[in-house]
């Protein structure tokens, strides 16, 4: 994760109201045709995503849900800080999750309600022109790995970002993190650049990007 300079959109991130695709269309007046085709493309993508998510027979043991309240914050933090290398304060979690609760997807055990997986993301205006989605954190409990839970969470996040109108989605991943690199690259993310010594421990990272437009 980077300390991204989120562009001050003057709204203190009360973002829900302006992130619907309707509003986006009203902005591109002179490009109505283009935005119409973009919308079709988006619809196409969302359909594809819906099909993918429904296709996979869910393991009856687990269920997916969105973030609901601060009560879930503690388990999210425990899960994520247990798996990621960088230390984050509770305010970092709150920044993302309180501002973009609809972009925080969780996976829990049906019986014990234990939190198994979480993805934390945001969607913002980048340099005043680009709507950029950002996946800040993704973590799966060790015992539940290799069950495609991570891909599903990522798909859910991408779907929501596309629904809201998104030009590109980015994230950073360590160069040695093959699992993450494979996951995202199979979805269409490319290595846009290499970030030298990105992490506190001096390791390089790749900026992964999925171009949608």
């Amino acid at each position: 994760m980077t300390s991204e300079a989120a562009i001050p959109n003057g709204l203190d991130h009360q973002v829900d109201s302006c992130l619907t695709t309707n509003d986006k269309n009203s902005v591109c007046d002179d490009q109505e045709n283009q935005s119409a085709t973009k919308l079709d493309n988006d619809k196409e993508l969302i359909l594809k995503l819906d099909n993918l998510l429904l296709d996979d027979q869910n393991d009856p043991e687990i269920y997916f849900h969105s973030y609901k309240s601060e009560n879930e914050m503690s388990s999210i933090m425990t899960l994520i800080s247990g798996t990621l290398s960088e230390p984050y304060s509770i305010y970092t979690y709150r920044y993302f999750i309180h501002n973009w609760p609809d972009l925080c997807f969780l996976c829990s055990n049906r019986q014990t309600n234990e939190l198994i997986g979480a993805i934390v993301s945001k969607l913002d205006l980048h340099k005043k022109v680009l709507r950029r989605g950002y996946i800040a954190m993704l973590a799966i409990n060790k015992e539940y790995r290799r069950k495609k839970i991570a891909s599903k969470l990522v798909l859910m996040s991408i779907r929501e970002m596309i629904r809201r109108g998104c030009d590109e989605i980015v994230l950073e991943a360590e160069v040695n993190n093959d699992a993450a690199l494979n996951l995202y690259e199979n979805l269409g993310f490319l290595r846009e650049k290499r970030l030298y010594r990105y992490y506190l421990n001096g390791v390089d990272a790749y900026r992964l990007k999925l171009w949608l437009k």
Partner: protein
Amino acid sequence: MQETIGDTTYNWTDVTTEFADLCRNLPVGEVLRDEDFTLFEAMTALELMDPKMDGGMSIKNHFHEQKHGNRTLTLPQLIEKKLVKTSSLTPTELIHLFDQLLSTFHMWLDGHSLALTLYTCVYVHDIPIIEDYPLRTICYTFVKLIDYIRERILLKAGLFEEEDFSGTLTYNFPFYRDTIKDQTCLSDLKKCEDELNKRLRSLKHESELNQSEINATQQLIHRIRFLRLFFGVTLRFNEANEKTNEQTYLNSEEILRNLKQIDELLLLIRPSHVVDDETATSPDNAELIIPISSLADIARSFDPYYNYRQLPPAFNRFIRQLILPSCVYTFLGSICQQLRRMLEVNDKRTLKQAFEFFVEYSTNEKPSLFIRSLLLLSYLPSVQGCLLSSRKIFGQISFTEQVKYEMRLFIVPPLLTLKYITIDQETINYGENFFQRACVPFSNLFYSLCNNRARTREKLSNLLDEFSVLQDESEKLDQWLHKYFLQHILQANLSTLNAQTLLLIEKTSYFFQFILHWTLLIMEYYLLMGFDLSLYSKRELYDVYFYFAQIILFTHINVYKTSTNILNTTIPMLIQINQKHQQISKNQTSNIFVQQFNSLIQQHSNDDPLMDSANDSNPGQKKNKRKNLNGLLSTNTDHHEQEVALIHGHFAMSTAMHRCLKALELERRLRFSSTDANYFLRDEIRYRHRFLPFANLCAPPYMPHADFLHIQNLSDNRYTPKELYQDAINNFSQAKTYFESYLNRLTISKQQTLNRTFTTSFTSLADVESYIRIAKTNCVVLKLLLSGHKSDMKIDFDFTLHAHYPTLKL
């Protein structure tokens, strides 16, 4: 309750219960905050008492052991409490301190902050009160050394980004700039050395020899001498004349001499090694063992937490152990190696040679920020208030002269070759304007190559925008000059005037071709760096190799053809015209441009394409075959011979790659596909973004995706897999041939190769050797595929032999 910290006494009131009670009134998820303080700002908050974030917690633990409360003692306080000594230090103590300081220097060069390196030494915070002369001198020198590198080298070169260097933060640490000058340190070190040598002599004359003290003193002398030489060498880089603030000429012979002395010293220095066990010895006596008991009086001299409270909150707070002296001295040895190698830049007398050197150096040596900065400053020394493009190469040659000379070498434009023409003011202005503007992207090119590799690639993509503007400008200049020169040449009225040659000169866009040539070089390097940094996914390979071969390399081959043709065809005529007018003009060069770089021509008269045989001062030289600028024998028709061989090699390799990729796709032998259900990146979108840096160029002209698909279709889709495999095999064979002939020509004329990794454009010897092996292997695999071997098996790509081209794996 009351608490005293330092000089202040605080009266605290505990409000925990009240606060907790009030909080109960907040619903779950509600946050109370100030208007301007959003969650975004809150991300930089520290959680009190969290050991990862709250510096005080770590210090608290640290000091808990020391039982001195929450305070960092200043040097005077430590002296007063007799916790550290500042007078009469033994040689062993001095050696230990020296090695520790050297270790902090190494870590600082590596990118760690001053607060966590040099200034963890308590002595450095208040050097004037140190009584011991050697210690005082050593401390001053390390501070001055780091200060000089910071100010005159790292900051002046300006190559660093966040990830390289945190040295802009100085935490109000003392640098003693007014107290002591650099030169004074050098003379003080000499004095120390002399005094210690006297002491050593007297020790050796004692009736009972104290061998350990003799050894320690000798080792100390070596270290002080090393520091003096090393600091001396550093001071020679980007040395500014104190009075004029102008760049002084880099005396590389002197530096090389000093480096040799340093190397010899490094062999003599035995790095110290502190041990608990008094009886420990070092195998083969390579290290100087120091029992920890002999360091009791200076145990508090280094404190990694000394500046902890000053670190900015979001800072990297990893406290690293100081690196072991044996590693540090090895590191210093390699620094000297790199410096020696880096000084070879001084004999790179054309932009092309300099470019090749910079590429080779950054690829093979993987230099640190320090060395990269030195490289840039050796090539383009900084001058106060001067832009990069106005700097002089090696502090001597104006950049515009160098650029013009380069153009002359590449394509002999009449404007830069006809000596005895008078050029009108308007044309001079037009031309001069263009040459000045050309300096900006060319100087930026060298700047870009000195960044860390990840940043270099980014900067190259920005550079392409600058080159696209230059392409426009060059076209305009060419148009202006076309008619102009036709007149001049007709007036020359040569009996041997060849209509064909005239037509050629009329048709050729000289400056455009030159700019295009460099644009293509940058595009090629940019694309290949993508492989070096492992940026391309397997699904992209087809498009990348296709673009590389059929658009970039294809264009470049034509540019070389054009240039070679011009050189071969027009040079005789240009020489004739010059000769014809020489007498009349009484040997006075009237072409102002040629006048300007006359000294460059004289220096390299052997290599000048217009080597004027009538001008030879030494008639015997005429008989010698000319050596081109790389020291290789060449004849008149061999212009760009090496470059052309390599580019054909690359072209063949890439063509082979995209042909076999297409064949593999048709035979469904690939493990992936961009038509996978969960693949969300559309080819057209990927194409547009990946090749975005190429979008603004005049040439090669940007192709919309539909057109790109169309030419791909024409090129590859009409054929069967078998035909494609065969073509790929042919291309890999061809590549092998081109590369092998390139190597053969090099080995014939080995004189100048010595220890160099020979690089032409951006391809080194090692690269070529790998490419040959890859071509061979792929031929074998492809022959198997051609015969239908294991038709159900998928193919994988292995980039371990070389990042640029994979070997195919069954």
